[in-house]
């Protein structure tokens, strides 16, 4: 079971963007050492026998068998969008549907995966059972690669490894858990720049794999989220001299419950626009929803699979939590919800902390809607300014 180096995985995720439908693009791509068979001029032709484009209206990728030095490797590589009309994160609804493996995933990513599945199945039909399948992708392509890796782990005998760069969250918490269990944490290489906003969206209950885990992380001294940080070429440059061990992330502060509590209770002003603020808010949401209100993740999922928006679902859950605690008188849920709402409102520039807010469901939904719109805009701004 070979593991690709960060450099090779990143170069593959990058070079797939240059493949269109002309055979010369594929030939250039397959001239990489991972695919080459023999050192004569015909190797392009031979390699092409073991590869195919997987192309639908929604998505684009390619499958290829490894060459003589990678005989036991199979590559499935997806690319992010190159079309102007790409709008897979602009919809505030951010719906969820059940993946082929039974776990809740983002509708857009799942439909891209499903549109390519027949071609992937066809390609894998005669694959060696002992092969290692490397699923690779950047941005949207990384989300699709994640769903593909989960499908392979559930349906195929081969080993699977997943490498993503700047990928958004592919599905809900339960999907991230299932993927991590099935594929194995050691086989998941989720790589992201600290200042790339795309991996931060959508908000909780969408979660990144591996879960538990923090992925592979490239720190940055920059103070703001940037377009460059999402660019695949930048990822290639960042990781090319590093190993996975270098990139493995230690536990970040906002993943520790006591730090999240301290952050919520602190009176320090919130600086909107710093990359970390969205991670803190996301962690605040996780803490308040799962620890304070005691809402079951399953009920959040049910809301998202129905007609409710993400903002509706979270507002409903928070409100439910407050109601229950008022009845039982056990925990002061409204205190934590209020602290969280104040932080979100400050980050959105909606005013100074206010302890007299009435936490109605409508009010919270409006704040959350603004928050979701803003995080998606941050992501769009970063990747939209070419």
């Amino acid at each position: 079971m070979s593991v690709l180096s960060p450099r090779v995985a990143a170069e593959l995720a990058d070079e797939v963007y240059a493949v269109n439908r002309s055979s010369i693009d594929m030939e250039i791509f397959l001239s990489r050492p991972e695919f080459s068979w023999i050192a004569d001029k015909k190797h392009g032709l031979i390699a092409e026998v073991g590869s195919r484009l997987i192309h639908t209206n929604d998505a684009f990728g390619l499958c290829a068998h490894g060459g003589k030095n990678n005989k036991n490797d199979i590559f499935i590589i997806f690319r992010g969008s190159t079309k102007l009309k790409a709008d897979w994160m602009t919809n505030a609804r951010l719906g969820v549907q059940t993946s082929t493996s039974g776990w809740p995933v983002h509708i857009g990513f799942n439909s891209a995966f499903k549109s390519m599945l027949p071609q992937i199945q066809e390609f894998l039909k005669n694959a060696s059972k002992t092969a290692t399948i490397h699923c690779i992708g950047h941005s949207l392509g990384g989300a699709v690669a994640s769903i593909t890796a989960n499908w392979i782990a559930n349906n195929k005998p081969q080993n699977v490894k997943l490498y993503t760069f700047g990928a958004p969250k592919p599905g809900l918490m339960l999907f991230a858990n299932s993927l991590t269990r099935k594929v194995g944490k050691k086989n998941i290489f989720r790589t992201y720049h600290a200042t790339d906003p795309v991996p931060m969206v959508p908000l909780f209950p969408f979660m990144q794999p591996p879960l538990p885990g923090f992925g592979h992380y490239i720190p940055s001294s920059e103070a703001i989220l940037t377009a460059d940080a999402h660019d695949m070429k930048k990822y290639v440059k960042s990781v090319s001299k590093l190993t996975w061990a270098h990139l493995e992330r230690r536990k970040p502060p906002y993943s520790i419950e006591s730090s999240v509590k301290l952050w919520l209770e602190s009176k320090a002003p919130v600086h909107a626009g710093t990359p970390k603020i969205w991670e803190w808010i996301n962690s605040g949401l996780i803490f308040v929803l799962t620890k304070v209100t005691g809402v079951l993740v399953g009920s959040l999922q049910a809301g998202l699979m129905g007609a409710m928006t993400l903002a509706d679902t979270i507002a409903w859950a928070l409100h439910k939590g407050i109601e229950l605690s008022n009845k039982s008188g056990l925990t002061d849920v409204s205190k934590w919800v209020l602290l969280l709402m104040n932080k979100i409102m400050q980050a959105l520039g909606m005013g100074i902390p206010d302890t007299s807010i009435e936490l109605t469901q409508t009010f919270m939904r409006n704040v959350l809607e603004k928050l979701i719109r803003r995080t998606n805009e941050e992501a769009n701004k970063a990747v939209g300014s070419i």
Partner: protein
Amino acid sequence: MSLFSTSKEVVLCSPMEGLLTFEGKPVLGVKIERRLKWYDGDESADDFVITDNNGRFNLPIVKQELKVSGYVQFVVSQEIVALYRDEEILIWAMGKSSKIEYGELGGKPVDLRCELSSDKIITRDYNTPMMTRCTWDSLEPWEDTEYPD
């Protein structure tokens, strides 16, 4: 500023000035066609030049003000073919994802020569993987303003 429609001048193809030969001899009056595609083929621009009496050609820079909505990795597919003796001979192919001038190779090629009878060369020695039948002596020093070290 709208978050969803930032626009920027993008160099879709840098200028290419060079000599076209067949078996080492300059070929005159040969049509060289340049085909550019971006946004996954939704947009394209084609042009052509004819080699002069010395076999020389001069493809001008192609640039455009482009708008992009979210989550798009920019790449322009460049294909340049010479129409020689009723045959289309591909002399240049790459997917340029750099947006700046001379981002293809990481510098301006000096003394560019394209030989129609040569085997195609696939190389990763420059900024972007590419196929070409052209060679050059050197690249003029170039500052990478997109991905500086």
